[in-house]
């Protein structure tokens, strides 16, 4: 009788133990599982992060198909007032470029993190690529970047106090300044002024010489009249009067042959 109850008690204890064990095991398992899951998540996150970093680094390489090389010549442009190129300047560059991208593609909001820079050299030159704000593994195409830079080239240049020649985007040619085309070419204006003065001078001199000649002719006419009246007086007047006879005083002038 005792054997049966001990057997039942032993059985119940054993099943109880089994249940406990299974409970513990399941709890452990669940704990383990959750641990595993969290580790996996962590790993995934880490992996993702690493992946994205790698992809990002991988996105920006020299001679990348969608990247551009930038070259700055600060000392050439500014000489005495040249500034140091440091992290902050680089940040400004990335921000300016994000601004340019925002101006070009208005629907997307580009951030500073979308501009990835690599391969900096002491020359001050580096490569950059632009990622899309929606998905960081997607790069913005070369043509869009070029358009964006072209549109805002002036603003980018002024942010760094540089010019098209000292802040070069290799591959993006600066747009040539449209020639200033005045309505009247300035040389015609100068020509008009000079010719006006010369023409006025010619007319003045010609007119003055014509006037002079007329005056001379009038004077000689007057002299002729004078002579005639003088002659008449001599013929009519008395002998002793002795009026000066003009017609014979200028004999030396009449050197006709």
């Amino acid at each position, binding site marked *: 009788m005792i054997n049966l109850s001990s057997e039942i008690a032993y059985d119940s204890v054993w099943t109880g133990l089994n249940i406990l064990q299974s409970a513990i095991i399941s709890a452990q398992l669940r704990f383990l599982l959750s641990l595993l899951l969290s580790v996996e998540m962590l790993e995934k996150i880490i992996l993702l992060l690493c992946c994205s970093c790698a992809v990002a680094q991988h996105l920006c390489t020299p001679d990348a198909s969608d990247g551009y090389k930038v*070259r*700055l*010549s*600060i*000392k*050439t442009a500014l000489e005495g007032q040249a500034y140091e190129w440091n992290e902050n300047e680089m940040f400004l560059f990335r921000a300016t470029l994000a601004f340019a991208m925002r101006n070009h593609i208005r629907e997307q909001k580009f951030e500073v993190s979308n501009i990835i820079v690599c391969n900096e*050299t*002491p*020359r*001050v*030159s580096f490569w950059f690529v632009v990622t899309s704000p929606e998905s960081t593994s997607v790069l913005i195409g070369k043509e869009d970047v070029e358009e964006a830079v072209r549109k805002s080239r002036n603003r980018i240049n002024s942010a760094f106090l540089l010019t098209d020649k000292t802040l070069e985007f290799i591959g993006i040619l600066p747009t*040539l300044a*449209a*020639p200033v085309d005045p309505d009247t070419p*300035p*040389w*015609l*204006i*100068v*020509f008009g002024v*000079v*010719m006006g003065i*010369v*023409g006025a*001078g*010619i007319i003045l*001199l*010609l007119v003055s*010489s014509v006037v002079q*000649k007329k005056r001379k002719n009038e004077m*000689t006419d007057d*002299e*002729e009249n004078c*002579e005639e009246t003088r*002659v008449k007086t001599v013929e009519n007047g008395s002998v002793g009067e002795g009026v000066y006879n*003009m*017609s*014979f005083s*200028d004999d030396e*002038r*009449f*050197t*006709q*042959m």
Partner: protein
Amino acid sequence: MGQTKDSGSEERPKWDNKAQYLLTCIGFAVGLGNVWRFPYLCQIYGGGAFLIPYLIALVFEGLPLLYLELAIGQRLRMGSIGVWNSITPLLGGLGIASSIVSFLVSIFYNTILAWVLWYFFHSFQNPLPWSQCPLNDNLTGYNVECEKSTPVNYFWYRETLNITPDIETSGSLQWWMVICLASAWCVVYICFIKGIESMGKAVYVTATFPYLVLTIFLIRAITLPGATDGLVYLFTPDWETLKNPQVWLDAATQIFFSLSVAFGGLIAFSSYNAERNNCERDALLVGIINSATSLYASIPIFSILGFKATTGYNACLKENIMSLTNYFEISDQNITVENYKQWFDHLNETFPDKVFSLNLRECDLQTFLDQSASGTGLAFVVFTEAVIEMPGSQVWAILFFVMLFSLGLSSMFGNIEGVLTPINDLKLVPKCIPNELVTAILCLISFLVALVFTLGSGNYWVEVFNSYVGSVPLLIIAFFEIIAVIYIRGMKTFSEDIYFMTGRRPNIFWKACWMVISPVMLLVVLVAYVIIQAQTHPTYHTWNPDYERFPQTQVKPYPDWVFAIILLLCVVPVISIPLVAFYKLICRVRNSSSRANLNPYCNGGFQADT
């Protein structure tokens, strides 16, 4: 009875004062050649060494000829035709030859002034139009022709001349050149409107202004960087060149053309002088001032050329520096013009193949200094390029072109005078036509003929005229002038003339020069010149954009019909000398045979021009 009439011959016009006369002669002698021919000759013939043949030619050839012309004009008081007619009617053709040469020279000379005016009109812009290339048609890049050469060359050859590839392609009249030419002739006319009255006032400005500008340029030029290099290069004597006979020939011809003898203009000018005027001192003054001006002008010219060479050399170095800096990613401005050599050597040692792959230009200051130019090339290409680099370019450009214009204008006076005075003396036009009209007609005819030089091929024709009209005919005329005065009129009579005018007879130096040295020198120069010209078929430089070695100028030979024109240009002026001699001989023979038919009213004593 008494009718006052203008006596048979108007009183001969007179200079207001001696200064006018001297300034006119100096202005005539000092011309564009002093500025753009003499410095070039100095440069290519070994700098300071060239001065020796130049001064020898001045003393033994230039001054005697000058004195002779001034003395004979002052004594006989007539223009070139009248003077030679008085000495002997057989040599009346000399005057005609002088007039024809003066006319031909004045035509192309004024075209050069038209070009100077064009550049002057364009100097009032900022930036100067020859400093940058224009854009091409679809505004994507620069004009191709301009990019291959330089903006300065493009402005000169394309926008100014619109030059054709060779002399056979005439092109069309360039309207802008036509109006510039018209304005140049108008300016000449206004100065000449009242004969020497108006011209004498104009020379106060045109003869003195160039000196003022040259002084300003001198002060500016010697302060430019690289000026001393240019001056050292110019004046370093290379005595070896004296062994080359070409140097002596060029010195003799340069002095001869520089003094503007045999044009007839100097004879005309001195004929308006008072009878007793010390023409010996005048001749010495004019000759020495002319040569001194050449020397004085070459200093700023060469300072500026040295500056241009240094700028070119620095630009070449900066190009190389940029290539090295960009390729090796060295920090900006670490390599400078001063330490370029050390950096280059260091990089070449460490990475020779990479440096080689960069194809760096060889930069040598000497090569830049050797780029010499004379004539229009100096003024319109080299100098304009230098002016761009100077601060305040517009001011310097305006000053330079006004100076060139005054220099040319004062020389034009002499040329026109050489044509007008014989016309007046020969009484070719009836009395009723006033002088102003005659001058106007002359200017109009010259303008119409000069339209040839406004064609696309105009520059080539100017070169033809420049090389051939103003060379052999003048030498021949000068030779006959000396023979006529010294041997036909006689040294004795001429000495008496000079005694009458100056109060003392010419000394042994003048006599020796006139009788022996100068004629011999002239003959030698003439013969050598003709031989050298005849040795090679003449060629010329063309601006041909389709040439494979463009922008170098392509050298082409003159076609046959141009060669025929060249021969005509050399022969037509001097053909009048034998023709007139022949004609007068026949007349004399005929007169002596028809002595029986003497008309009692025909008074031979008054046949000669009074």
